[in-house]
């Protein structure tokens, strides 16, 4: 067992699960989407991105690319949420604003799923050898 691989897999999967947790639920209902979960998703995604730095293989490059996409989408979601909550309204988001935030995180979720698929493919092909 390689500790580096454990940490790597842990963060990749955790990024996807947190993202999924935030995304799930009625798109326009702000009560179903915890902002703390979004915060956790952003942080874990950033860590996962940094973990993928400096890998010169083709697989590593694609890993890094998907993580960058996910991080960007989540940061965009967080910025949207901050703007909506602090500038446009006073704390409680409208259905329209909520759906914008959640759908952005949905995009990130897709990138995170790709990341997880890559991880699985890598693992499976490693065992075949």
């Amino acid at each position, binding site marked *: 067992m390689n500790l580096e691989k454990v940490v790597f897999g842990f963060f990749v999967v955790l990024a996807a699960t947190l993202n999924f947790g935030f995304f799930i639920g009625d798109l326009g209902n702000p009560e179903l989407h915890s902002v703390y979960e979004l915060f956790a998703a952003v942080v874990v995604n950033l*860590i996962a991105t*940094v973990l993928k730095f400096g890998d010169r293989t083709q697989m590593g490059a694609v890993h890094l690319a998907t993580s960058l996409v996910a991080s960007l989408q989540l940061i965009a979601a967080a910025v949207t949420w901050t703007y909506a909550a602090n500038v446009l309204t006073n704390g409680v988001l409208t259905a329209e604003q909520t759906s914008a935030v959640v759908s952005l995180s949905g995009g990130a979720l897709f990138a995170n799923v790709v990341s997880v698929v890559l991880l699985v493919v890598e693992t499976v092909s490693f065992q075949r050898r």
Partner: protein
Amino acid sequence: MASSPLPQLRPDLSSAGVFLVLRRMRIPLIVLIVIFAVSVLGLSLIPGQDAQGRPDRMGIFASFYFMSYTATTIGFGELPHPFTAAQRMWVTLTIFLSVIGWAYAIGALLSLMQDQAFRQALARRSFSQAVHRMREPFLLLVGYGNATKMLARSLDDMGRRFVVIDHQDTRVSAVELDAYRADAPALLGDARDTALLTLAGLGHGTCEGVVALAGDDETNLDVAMTTSLLRPDLPVIARSSSREVAERMRAFHVQEVVNPLDRFGDHLRILLRSPAAYQLMIWLTSAPGTPPPRRFERLPHGRWVIYGHGRYGDELSSDLRAEGLDVTLVHVAGGSILAGEGDSAHVIESGHVADAVAFVAATPNDTTNLWLVEAARRANPDAFLVALQNRRANAPLFTAIGVDFGLVPAEVIAHEVLARLANPVLMRFLPQVPHQGDKWAADLVDRLVETCGHGTPDLWRIRLSHDEAPALEGRLDGTSLRLDDLLRDPADREHPLGIVPLALLREGERTMTPGGEVLLRAEDQLLLAGRLRDRAALGTTMTEGFTASYVIDGIRVPSSWVWRRFARLDSVGRPR
């Protein structure tokens, strides 16, 4: 480009530095992110109160804002409301945490900048880019010792470009310190590594040759082999200090092998035969603009004593015997007197220096050579003293001790290589020089100084062919055009150009210093010496019909069609 497979290096190396930074910065960056996240989250959860004392939480955005300016030590104060005691406790903790995080990250980055591997990756990257950007022809110089330094200086003076590769750090930095006019990329690394040679431009389209003058034969042999295998189209000049290595190089079709020690004997032979020829030879192979070197007196003929080391001493003595000298050879074991040859007086006595006419100290050790020369001079003050000066820096010592003729291998190499690179024609002329006699050489030196000035003249070759001399067509039947007439000044034909014809090559036959009355024929080849501006003037005579008719016939041909009709001349200025 040769079709041979050359290792592709560029994509690999170009991003190596970036990857190294990213890889090493992983943990510091993650530590920073975690510290930040924990701080922000904690601050947003801890209950606070607003200005009126009502309970209030900061929220993630306000916490993030506060942590951003606190962690970066900007410190706007407690916003949006003054903190409660609980918040202040948490903030105190986060301040220390974030300071540690930043210190760690910046420290890691700085130590990475100091890292040898990282700096080398960066240096290689900028080197490969510099080589890649080369648009002019350039030479690949392997090794940056004394000989290469002299060679590089001359090449730079001639406006040629080069790339240096050496395995010693100090020498690579010396390339930068030597401040050449053109940018000279230098790479630290072992030239035996084919990948590095490729990086240094072996596969580059404008690489025009490889010069391997490294200190050890193995590197030179390896470079010569690599080049002739991967780029058979490139000329290679390699240095070797033994005959076996030279043979192996030749096996790989490396035609130009320079052996400085071997050349010592050759130089002495030429000097023995004709001091003026030697002077001419050294002068013509010097860097551009060098004044003629001093001419030696005739060397004494009689018994010579050679103190040499190993087979090299044998070769030197057989060279001198071939010149009809009586030679006494004394072997100096290991190149060092101290290595058990008995006491010093015995060593000098064993060669019977007292009644010899000349004394040669040719061991590979300068200290030994100096000592030998000094001892020999004491035993026989009248002897002609010759010494091998292995290190160029020791030259003042040899001058001070009063050596009559000293040979510095680095200089010999630089001269030879420069002559081969700059004037391939010269290398066909030079071997003939010693056979022409002392007077011929002395006259030629005087004539060159008189017509071309004190600096080394420019040497070039012309061929009176349709391509090179279209304006002379119709005159080259061997009956009308005299060499003197060709070499008149296009500005004023009463004056000759400052050009000395060194040799005429006609149907495989060579005439040295042809006279002005020689009648030229088509396909004649001439080796000329002169100044650059005269070379350009002769070029005009050879290519412009109007200039040619003025220079050769003294007729000013009108250059416009109308006036030519009036003068009844055709387009090259001959009467219709």
